Structures are given as C-alpha cells and as structure tokens.
C-alpha cells in the first residue's frame, strides 16, 4: 500500500485522496476552513498549507517542492513527506490567522458561535496572539437572510462554504458573493431569500459566527450544552442528530455525520421540529374517567384500573384491540404488544394494528436530480413517522403474521370493547373515523399532546417523546439505529417503554413479587432476540459513534 508521512506519522492510503483527508483519517489535525467533506474543494482559505517533499522519480531521493501546497487539494503521493509543523507552514498559519482577524470585530463575548468557533480554536492553536493591524477595520452589516438565519457579515471569513452548499446541495443558489477584495460580502441573490428546506445547515457549516440560527440566537452559551446522540424522531429518514440540551431543556438539534444515512445534513423540519417537546400543552398527569368526567389520578391507580378493566373483559370474553404508534421505538412496540397479549390471556388474541403513518407529499432528494443512492445525496422523507417499519417488524416477530395497517385495523375493531392506543405524534393525529370507531368503547390512551381522544379516554397516561427515552428506530431504508435518552421525561410523564415495563412487572409481581424494573432499551433488544429470534436487534442495530455523547464540562454556578 502507498504511504505518506504526515508530521512524522506514516499513513497508508489507496487511490488519490487529498493529504488533508488522509491526515484526518489518521487522527492528525490540519487546520482548515474552506474544505468540507460534503462540498467541492476550492482551496481558498489557505490555512491548510504544508511543506511537501517528494521523491525524485529517477533517484528516489526526497526533494522539497518549492511552494507550500494546499493539503485539501493536493493528492497524496507515495513516499512523500508532508509537514504542517515546519517553520514555513507555521509562518503561513500565523499569517492567515492574522489576516482573517484584521477586519473581524472580535466580538466573541456576544457571539453565539463562541466556544465552537474555528477562529477561536485556530487562533489559540495556530495564531500569533496579537495583531499588528493599526488601521481602521472594515465594517459590514448584519443581514436577515432567511426565516431561520442571520448573517453577521462582519464575522465572515469568506470561506464560501455556505455559497457552495446552496449551489451544490440544495441547488437553490440563494447565496452569492458580491464585491471584491476585502470589502467582499456574502449576500442573497437579488430577489431571493434563504428559505430552502435545508437552510439551517448553513449555520452548521459556517466555521465562524457569521451565519447563525435565529432559533438558537442568544438562548444559551454552547459550552453549557450536553450533546446526546439521537435519531430523527419525526420522519422516516433516520437522520442522525445530536440533541443539545441543558438542565432538561433542549436548545437545538444538529446533524451528526453519517455517510450511509444523512451525510452531514438534516432538514429544517427535523432541526426545528422538536419544539412540541417543551410545549406547555404536554400531558403531565394520568387521568381517569369518573362518572363521565375525567379526573386526575396517579400512575399506580391508573394501572389498577387498566388491569381491572382488562380482567373484567377477559372474564366476559370481550375483545381487546391495541394500536401501536409508529412514533414508538421497536422496544416499546415489543413491550406493549407483549403486555397486551399477556393481559388478554391465551384464549382471546388482541387485535393489534400499526397506528396511522402520516405522509406529506413525496420523497425529495438533494441535490436536485441526484439518485438517493448517490454518494452525496440527501433525502427528505415524505413519511412523517420514524418507526413504522420497526413497529411492523416487531409485531410480525411477535404474532407470526403482519400486523393490521391502520385502515384494516379500524374495520377489525368493530366489536372490540376495550381499546389501547398510543399516540405520541407532534400534531393532531386522531381522525374522525377513528373517533367514531371508538365511541362507546373503553379507551386507554397513552399520548403526549391533547387531541380529540384525550378528554374521552377512560384512562389517559402521559407518555414521553423520543428525546426523553432511548430505543431503536428503523428508517425508510430498513436501517436499525439506536438512540439515547437526552433529557428526562417532562415532570409527570413516563416513557411508553417504562409504562409497559411497569404493567408487565405488575403481572409478574402477582406471581413472583418483583418490583418494577427501569425500562432499559438494550436489555429489551436482547430479550427480543432471545424470545422472538429477532437476531437483528443484537446484530444489526447501529449504535451512535463513540465520542458522539459530549457532556458539558461547564457548570452554571449562581453567585
């Protein structure tokens, strides 16, 4: 295999990757601004330059290349020696850092990017610590460029990542460069606004505090945030995300790089769709129907009532139905179905169906015209539920046959008397047909937001959104991905996984007296594999990459 030595470390490579790519793959850092794995190479920021020695093709002796070479653009050559820590390379790094800051307002204390800004990091690592610039700085305006994004032109380092993103990824080209020389600016193409479906990504790829997310602006210092790896819980894309939160509150959602799923991006829908988690409408109290009116109760009383009603139904030979929401994780679907079956007993099988799967338009792949299989393609899924496939997979594993789809299930439950439903959708999901089909039935509902049924349920339990629990989702491509709990469930609520673990424990307790265990997604996966033979749940589930959980190392101290 071909070899290149970068800063003294021998690295192997195949093909003709750039020096920078090989360095990064080998855990070496080379500073870079304009280069981004998902965008074309422009080699314009000039901070990644290195001194290179190449073997003479005839004598094989190492000879210096007289110019500094951009490592982001220059392909590796066998036997070459590269140094980004030689005096020349270091002098260039210092010069570029000084240049980038001469017209920069140095307003880190009021900048959202502070703490995750490459100007800060590289200044510390590669800068000269002081500026010799004594002239007047160029002042540039702050611009409102789109529904989600502000542009602080002052802080821009003209790396052109954002411009390339709107050209090469979204194909919408709203951003462009205007002006020349040091008075150059990023601007909107006349008559356009940065309002494409992926617009939030420009704030992520901007290496400095020039493009900022309006939604996050001034809400939290980034060093206070804990980052928990998660999976898109709103659509079938399975986009890898990082939920960034502090003290039980989510502040923002960012993409996590996963080349086989979402590449480097997420849609604005996924980025901003989590707001309902902190809605003041969230259900936070178990309720039960008493003389036609709902009253508050607690979980154990609610469980008692559920158990009693189901026991009565079993005595009477009444039919029981259950609707498993595609918003639930595989583990929760399994626990739910297992419990319903156990509660119904051997004689009467419950009628189990998959909850409605919302679809909005059609799948859209970026860049326009790309096939979803292309290396850099990114797809927004029309299916707006994260786990319809996973729920179907688990129910089939448990029942041996395909579960009812929602429409079929609606027909099948005509003579059912007790119906258990799970919701957990970010918006209204109860259709008129469903409400009608449920009239005069005994309803147990686990949901997160108020809807048509929440006031009518005989027992209502407050559930938890995906950010508040762990589990596994199967995306539109059949990929199983595990996610971690980011924040605790809002006070008063419990994850569906915990609710069914509780209910299962109560059944077991009546025989052997054990208390309720804590819902543990990994243990449930093992159980699914062991008891249902669904080996994919221990074999194929993709766990978040190591290092994607980042705890804040800062503590907010009140003085």
């Amino acid at each position, binding site marked *: 295999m071909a070899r290149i030595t970068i800063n003294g470390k021998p690295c192997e490579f195949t093909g003709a990757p750039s020096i920078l790519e090989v360095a990064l793959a080998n855990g070496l850092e080379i500073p870079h601004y304009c280069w981004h794995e998902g965008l074309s*190479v*422009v*080699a*314009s*920021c*000039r*901070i990644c*330059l290195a001194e290179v020695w190449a073997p003479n093709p005839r004598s094989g002796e190492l000879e210096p290349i*007289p*110019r*500094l*070479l*951009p490592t982001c*653009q220059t392909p590796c050559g066998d036997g070459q020696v590269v140094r980004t820590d030689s005096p020349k390379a270091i*002098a*260039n790094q210092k*010069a*570029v850092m000084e*240049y*980038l800051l*001469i*017209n920069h307002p140095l307003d880190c204390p009021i900048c959202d990017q502070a703490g995750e800004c490459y100007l800060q990091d590289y200044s510390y690592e590669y800068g000269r610590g002081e500026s*010799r*610039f*004594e*002239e*007047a700085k*160029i002042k540039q305006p702050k611009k409102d460029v789109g529904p989600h994004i502000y542009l602080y032109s002052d802080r821009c*380092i*003209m790396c*052109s990542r954002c411009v390339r993103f709107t050209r090469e990824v979204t194909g919408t080209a709203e951003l*462009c*460069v205007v*002006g*020349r*020389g*040091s*008075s*150059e600016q990023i601007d909107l193409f006349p008559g356009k606004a940065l309002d494409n479906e992926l617009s939030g990504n420009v704030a992520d790829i901007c290496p400095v505090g020039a493009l900022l997310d309006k939604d996050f602006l001034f809400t939290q210092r980034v060093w206070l945030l804990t980052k928990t790896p998660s999976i898109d819980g709103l659509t079938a894309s399975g986009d890898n995300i990082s939920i960034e939160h502090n003290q039980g509150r989510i502040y923002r959602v960012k993409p996590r790089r996963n080349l086989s799923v979402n590449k480097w991006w997420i849609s604005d829908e996924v980025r901003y769709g989590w707001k309902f988690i902190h809605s003041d409408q969230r259900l936070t109290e178990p309720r039960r129907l008493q003389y036609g009116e709902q009253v508050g109760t607690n979980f154990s009383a609610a469980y008692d009532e559920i158990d009693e009603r189901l026991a009565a139904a079993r005595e009477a030979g009444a039919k029981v139905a259950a609707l498993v929401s595609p918003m639930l994780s595989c583990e929760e679907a399994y626990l739910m179905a297992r419990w319903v079956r156990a509660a119904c007993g051997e004689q009467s099988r419950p009628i189990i169906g998959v909850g409605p799967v919302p679809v909005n338009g059609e799948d859209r792949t970026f860049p326009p015209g790309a096939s979803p299989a292309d290396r850099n393609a990114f797809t927004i899924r029309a299916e707006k539920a994260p786990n319809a496939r996973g729920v179907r997979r688990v129910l089939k594993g448990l029942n041996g046959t395909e579960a009812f789809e929602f429409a079929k299930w609606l027909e099948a439950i005509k003579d059912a008397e007790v119906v258990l439903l799970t919701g957990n959708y970010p918006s209204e999901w109860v259709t008129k047909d469903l409400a009608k089909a449920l009239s005069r039935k005994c309803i147990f509902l686990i949901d997160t937001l108020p809807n048509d049924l929440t006031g009518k349920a005989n027992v209502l339990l407050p559930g938890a959104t995906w950010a508040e629990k762990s589990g596994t989702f199967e995306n539109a491509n059949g990929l199983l991905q595990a996610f971690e709990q980011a924040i605790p469930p809002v006070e008063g609520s419990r994850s569906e996984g915990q609710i069914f673990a509780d209910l299962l424990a109560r059944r077991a307790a009546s025989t052997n007296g054990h208390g309720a265990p804590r819902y543990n997604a990994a243990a449930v996966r093992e159980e699914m594999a062991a008891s249902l033979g669904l080996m994919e749940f221990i074999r194929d589930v993709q766990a978040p990459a190591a290092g994607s959980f980042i705890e804040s190392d800062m503590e907010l101290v009140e003085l």
Partner: protein
Amino acid sequence: MPMTGPVLTRRIPTFPYGNPRDRRTVWYDDYVKSGGYEALRRSIALEPAAVVDMVKDSSLRGRGGAGFPCGLKWTFLPKNYEGQRYLAVNADESEPGTFKDRLILDYDPHMLLEGIAISCFACRIQTAYIYIRGEYHHQARILERAIAEAYGQGIFGGRGILNGACDFKVDCYLHRGAGAYICGEETGLLESLEGKRGWPRIKPPFPAVKGLFGKPTIINNVETLCCVPFIIEHGVEWFKSLGCASKIGGPPSFGTKLMGVSGHVQRPGVYECDLGIPLRRLVEEYCGGMRGGKRYKAAIAGGVSMGVLGTDQFDAEMDFDIGRKYEVLGLGTACPTIFDEDTDMVMVARNIARFFKNESCGQCTPCREGSGWMYKLLCRMERGEAKLKDIDLLLELAGSMGAMPGTTICGLADGNNWAVRTIVNKFRSEFEARCSPSFVPVTVGVA
C-alpha cells in the same frame, strides 16, 4: 539580426516606420490586398501537427505576461481526442500601463482573426471565444464587424475554413468582460466566460485538459496569436532571427514585441521592437527621451505586477530574462511606465496597492486581506504617520502572498507582492524619510 521593418505593425503605421497619424482600421479587403489570410491558406495545406511543430520550433513565447512557450502549451491538449475543444483569446488587457493589444484591435483586427483561424486549425479547436475587456467598447465594435466580415468571407463558419478549402470548421465569438482585472487571469477568464464570478480556478487540472465548460481549452494572448501567421508566412528561421537568445542560458526571447510606453516620456505610445532592446534605447530612440529633459528615476518593467526597475537599471534589456537579471518578476506585457526624478515612489507604491486591493477577487485570505492592509498602511505612510517598523511589516505582508510562496491561487497576489517589495527595496530611503522612529529614546537625567 535586428528587425528591418515592421512585423505586427505592418498595417499599423508606427514610428519609426510610419506616422501614427496615418493609422486607420484595416478591414477585410485591405487586409487581403496586403497579403492577409495567405498564411492561413498556407497552413491548411499543411498537416495540423506540422503547424504546431513550426510554432514550437519558433520558440514563440506568450505575450500575455507569463512568457510561456506557446507551442509547448498547445501540445498539452489531449491526444486522440475528437470532442469539443476551445480557444479562449485573452483580450482582457487590464494591466495598468498596458495597451498593446488595443493597438491591434483598433487597427488590424483581421490579423488576430487569422491567427485564431490558424491556431484552431493546428490544434483542432472548433470554437474560439475572444474575451475582450469590458471597457474596450470601441474595440468590441470593431471586432464584431471584423468577425462578421470573416464569416461572410468564409474564414469561419459552417462551410469550413476559407469557404471550404479545408473541411475543418471554426466558429469565433466575441465575449465582453464586465470590468474586472482578474478576468484576465486565464482561469478567471474561463469562469467568467461560463457566466460565473471570475474566481480563478485551482490547478491542476490545467485548462488544456479541463478548461472551458470542462473541455480542453487553450488560452492565448491577442499578440501571441498575431505572431502565428508571420511564423507560418516567413518561416521559423526568420522568426528566430528577430529578438535575442538568452544570455544567461535560459530559454530564448525570439521575435518582435509590441511595447507600450507610458509615463514621463516625450512621446508615449506603442512601438514594435526586437525583444532584448535596452530600456534606455526604447525611451531615448523611440519615445524621444524623458519629458521636459528630466532624469530617469524608475520604471515599471511591464505592467504594474512586475515590480519596478531601479534608477541604476535603465539599461535593462527588455527580454524574458529581465526577471532573473534585474530583480523584477518578469517581462510581463513589456509595456513599461517610466518615472522621472520628481516621482514620489511612496505614492507610486500606494497607487499600485490601491489597484490590487480593488482588483483582488477575494478568494484567498492572504491576497484579500493583505492587499487591503498594505494599501491602508501605505496611505498612512504617505501621510507621514507611520513608524519605521511599519516598513518591515509592509515587506513581511508583501512576502506572505503569492502563487510562488504558494499562499494564493493565482498570480495577482504575486504582482502585488513584487510591486510593493521591489519599490520598497529599491527606494527604501524614500520610505524611511516618511516614517518616524519606532522607538523614542528616553534620556534619564542622572545627577
């Protein structure tokens, strides 16, 4: 053997062979009457490869600034490739002090068109674009008319060269720039032709492999292409008898060169001379000497990007070795600007720095920021508000940018670097006189 009569200026009356007052645009009929398009006729009787060989053997070097061997550039085109190729004719001529291509465009447009037709035939190029500087309104109109004539006469167009005397078809279009100097840089020009912002491309791939619209492309200066018909007509040996060989063992500087002289001389203008003519002779014999009898102080060698020749370098030979011999970047466009003894070199530096800060395309950090910083610093120096240490800072800034140290993508930054650095180095005392000491000595009285 020095030139005995005008070559490129054969139809453009120029001192000492003619009177500039007699100049008028030579249209198709007059062009043909004076032997025009004969070289094209002769070329198409040859194998294309033979034409390329002749240009290669003549050692014709690019007249656009870099002096790259023209024939060698042509051989970089992919072999055994039948698809679309392009010729981009660089008529952007935006270098301050350079106005030699304008002379050709003004008076002898068919000389360029003939050069284009021959080059396209030789390199199997189907389409040529002439990229003309935005401010050349008049010249654009002349070219439009000349191209229309050439199509009408069957030089270009669907019938094949010379009304089908040869199967090969060439199309030629004019494209006007929008006033950016950087669009004269060859890959900035290609981007601009494609309708994009004129941001020079990173190389490799080189344009000969992947150029305009991703297709193999040759980029040549107007004057370079105009030399081609003469090489075909008079032969390689004749061409090599003009100009001079290298005196320092480098590649030769054959042929004549249009030299546009501006500045403090009696008679500024474009003159055609042998390459290698000493600057002093150019000024004294062609330009009638220094204006007002003043003394020579400095000269910009060939466009501001090349840096300045010092007071003791008036005898510099104007050939492609000038860079190595006289501490300038190169011959550039061979259009010198002459300064007399009254010139304030700090002001010259500031003025040049202003040009580069306005024209930097803004891609590369060192060029974008460095050009602005140097300009501001030079303004401060000119006002007498700078310290001595700022001179070193200025030199450091200049030295930090350029395609040669490798810190920028294109050569614009090198131009800025060389212009400022050579002026400061060759006239340092003028800068020092404007600056106050960096350290003010403090004396402590000890009783």
